[in-house]
């Protein structure tokens, strides 16, 4: 699996001019960095906290890309991979961006390996009307460009705010704001929701 360490002004999703997503340069030492250091030393509580902080982000990134039934297992896989490679992370402040990159790459690998059976299992499972509506909206979101997709899932499913998305993923706040507003506008159009002024 190819993996890029997010440590600078790395531009993501290049080639699509209308979407803005770039990694923010990390300068100050974040409180999460000390958590990462504690996890490196084998601190269980620190690992629990780090998981609670970052698992929604990983879950959201995966949910925007892979079948829902696979997401939970993949989240755990990604954390295991990250734990194994934690010593290779040079800048602990960039943990979020690094983990997000692992999650994106893992989602791509998932599609390279197997695909059809996952979609079937999702179809076969019995759902409530609320859940059916959620799946329908998710299906629409998944048809949006990647940068919008990820930001909207993190905002609407995981309940993260714009600043939280920027902080966790290591993206610039302006990029997240633009993607959130543009993505929401397209989603409203596709769902037939008229924007209230």
């Amino acid at each position: 699996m190819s993996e890029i360490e997010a440590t600078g002004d790395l531009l993501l999703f290049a080639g699509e001019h209308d979407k803005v997503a770039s990694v923010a340069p990390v300068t100050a030492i974040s409180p999460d960095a000390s958590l990462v250091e504690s996890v490196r030393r084998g601190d269980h509580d620190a690992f629990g906290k780090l998981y609670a902080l970052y698992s929604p982000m990983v879950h959201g990134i995966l949910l925007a890309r892979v079948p829902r039934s696979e997401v939970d297992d993949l989240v755990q896989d990604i954390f295991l991979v990250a734990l194994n490679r934690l010593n290779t992370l040079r800048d602990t402040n960039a943990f979020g961006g690094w983990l997000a990159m692992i999650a994106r790459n893992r989602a791509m690998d998932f599609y390279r390996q197997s695909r059809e059976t996952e979609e079937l299992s999702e179809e076969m499972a019995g759902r409530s009307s609320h859940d059916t509506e959620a799946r329908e909206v998710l299906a629409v979101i998944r048809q949006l460009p990647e940068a919008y997709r990820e930001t909207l899932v993190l905002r609407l499913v995981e309940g993260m705010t714009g600043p939280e998305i920027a902080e966790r993923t290591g993206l610039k706040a302006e990029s997240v704001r633009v993607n959130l507003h543009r993505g929401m506008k397209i989603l409203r159009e596709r769902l037939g929701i008229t924007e209230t002024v």
Partner: protein
Amino acid sequence: MKDDYLWDKSGEPDPEIERLERIMGGLRSRRGAEDLMPAFEKLSRRKSVRPSAKWLAFAATVAFAVLALGVFGVMQRQTGKQETAKSEMVMVNPTPTDSLIEEVAPPNTSGETGRTENDSQGAATTQTTKRSPLEARRRNIVRRRESFITQQERTEGLLAKEQLLKALQITSTELDSVQKKVQGDEKAGPSS
């Protein structure tokens, strides 16, 4: 503003966004870190056994230093052996350089000027046939000896020479005084 609500949930809430949040919130994961704890413990145990990069670097540095010292020691020993062998070689033939050079280059005396060309040639050939094996060996030793004398050896030699001269001077003065005493005693005659 409704834009602010989408951005950071502040300001006036957008009812459509709120509805979407309610619907989509059901897709959140409910799994915690508990399932991963055994794997985490296993990993951290394995990592605590594995030496860290810093320790590996330190061990590598120490190993390199020991290796360098070993190589240096071996080289020193070899040089020492070579020097001993050379000094032994010189001791086998301790003939002074000057006498060797004299032997190698025969003096051009006036008696030889009257000789004929053939005579001188014959003499030269007999000289070379007589001297050549010994001469070559000595020459070789002299060359080697000259090339092996270092600055330190020269200084040591000079110091030894000075010490020997001083000792000789002291001995000669002592001998003089003893001689004078003996001579004085003889002039005075026997006491008994």
